[in-house]
Structures are given as structure tokens and as C-alpha cells.
């Protein structure tokens, strides 16, 4: 049991626990908090995998911005405990069943060893550093970079337009 493996297992367990917690918690806020925990473990994973820039971005964008937005909206709508009546309840067992089926297939694929990938080794110096990623972004992936900027702009405008309260031309009753 190499130290890497131990680290991996520990982090893995934490991540899965958080995910399960998110699913099962009645209260939306608790599930949000569990999700934040999950994102944090993800960041640590990225560091282990030699992607320090991504880890940092994960922490700042995902855990920081998106989850904060979630919490804000939950608080705004007061939707913590809205699970009153359940309908179409035949769906839950089917979903779980399908999930297990999916896991079974991936497991079978890995166990049968049809795919031999590789092993993770300690990254050499400056592998995932912001310098390389920045250079890559602004050379090879310049066009997608610009497109994402336009996408973000569109998203902001959309969000504002959808949530405006007193838009004059909205739903004529």
C-alpha cells in the first residue's frame, strides 16, 4: 500500500461520502455544503495529479462563485424543505437500478482489463503550471478562449433578462 494509494483512497472516500450526503440530505443548504466539500476534495486531487492551476481555478470558480450563488438562491427562495408531495415515485428504484447497471458495466470494463491505460507518476517540475496553461490558451486554444468569453457575456445578459421583475412586455394575461 504505497503512500499515494492511501492518499487516493482517503480522498476518494471523502468525495463519495460528500456526494452521498448531498443526495440524501433533506435540507438543500446541507446538500450545498456537502457539495462544497466534494469540490474541495476535487481540488486536492488535481494537485495530486499535477494540475495546480486547475486546482486553484476549481477552488475559486466552483467552490467559491458557483456554490455561493447556489446558497444565495436557496436562501432567496427559501426552498430548504419543499419536498412535500411525491409523484411518479416508480422512477426512484429504476434510477438506482440503472445507476448500478452503469457501475457494473464500467467495473466489468476495468476488471476485464481490456483497457490498459497507464499509471500516475509524480509530475515533473512545472507540468500543470499556470505559465504553460496560459501559453497553451493563448496559442493553440485562442479561438475557444474568445468564444467562452462571448458565452459568459451571453449568460450574464440572459440571467439579467430572465429575472427582471417589471419587464414591460412580459406575459400579457
Amino acid at each position, binding site marked *: 500500500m504505497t503512500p499515494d494509494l492511501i492518499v487516493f483512497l482517503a480522498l476518494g472516500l471523502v468525495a463519495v461520502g460528500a456526494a452521498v450526503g448531498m443526495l440524501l440530505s433533506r435540507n438543500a443548504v446541507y*446538500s450545498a455544503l456537502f457539495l462544497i466539500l466534494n469540490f474541495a476534495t476535487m481540488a486536492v486531487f488535481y494537485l495530486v495529479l499535477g494540475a495546480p492551476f486547475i486546482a486553484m481555478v476549481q477552488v475559486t470558480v466552483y467552490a467559491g462563485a458557483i456554490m455561493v450563488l447556489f446558497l444565495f438562491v436557496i436562501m432567496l427562495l427559501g426552498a430548504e424543505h419543499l419536498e412535500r408531495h411525491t409523484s411518479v415515485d416508480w422512477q426512484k428504484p429504476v434510477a438506482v437500478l440503472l*445507476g448500478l447497471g452503469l457501475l457494473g458495466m464500467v467495473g466489468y470494463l*476495468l476488471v476485464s482489463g481490456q483497457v490498459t491505460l*497507464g499509471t500516475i507518476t509524480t509530475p515533473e517540475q512545472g507540468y500543470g503550471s499556470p505559465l504553460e496553461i496560459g501559453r497553451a490558451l493563448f496559442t493553440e486554444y485562442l479561438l*475557444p478562449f474568445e468564444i467562452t468569453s462571448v458565452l459568459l457575456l451571453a*449568460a450574464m445578459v440572459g440571467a439579467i433578462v430572465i429575472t427582471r*421583475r417589471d419587464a414591460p412586455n412580459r406575459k400579457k394575461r
Partner: protein
Amino acid sequence: MVPVEYYVGLSAILFTLGVVGVLTRRNAIIIFMSIELMLNSANLLFVAFARTFEALNGQIFVFFVMTVAAAEVAVGLALIVAVFRSKSSINIDDVNSLRG
């Protein structure tokens, strides 16, 4: 030395939890969070493979996924707010005006 298969296994578990979450929970926001969880599991795998194949593309791709996710969350939550305002409920089953 951790073989990549473990990472694939882990991300599969996370992904499945996300899917189950989407299919079982009725609260729109929880569903939203489950989608974020699925995205994250994908990102994990991207980085893992980037690492094994010594290629940066994976990580750059993750970067882009994150930007898209952010845009998506913005618009999604705006929708949820709009829906809540009109139906005063964010239970996904009530949103069935498109019924055939």
C-alpha cells in the same frame, strides 16, 4: 503509483451518484447540484488522463468545462428564480405545461 483505473472507477461512482440525484430528487436546485457533481467527475477524469498521457489538452479542456458550467449555473438559477416567481414552487414535477 496509482493506476488510472482507480480514478476511472471513482469518477464513475461520482457520475452515477450525480445521475441518481438528478433522477430521484424533485427539488430543482438539488438536481442542479447533481449536474454540477456529474461535471466535476468528468473534469476529474480529464485531469487524470492529462496526467497519464503527459498532455495539457485535458487540463485546458477542464478549464473550458468550468467556464461553461459557470455560464450554465447563471442561466439555470435565473430560470429557477423566474419559475419560482410564477409557480411559487420549484418542484420539478409541477413544471409540466409542455405535457402532450
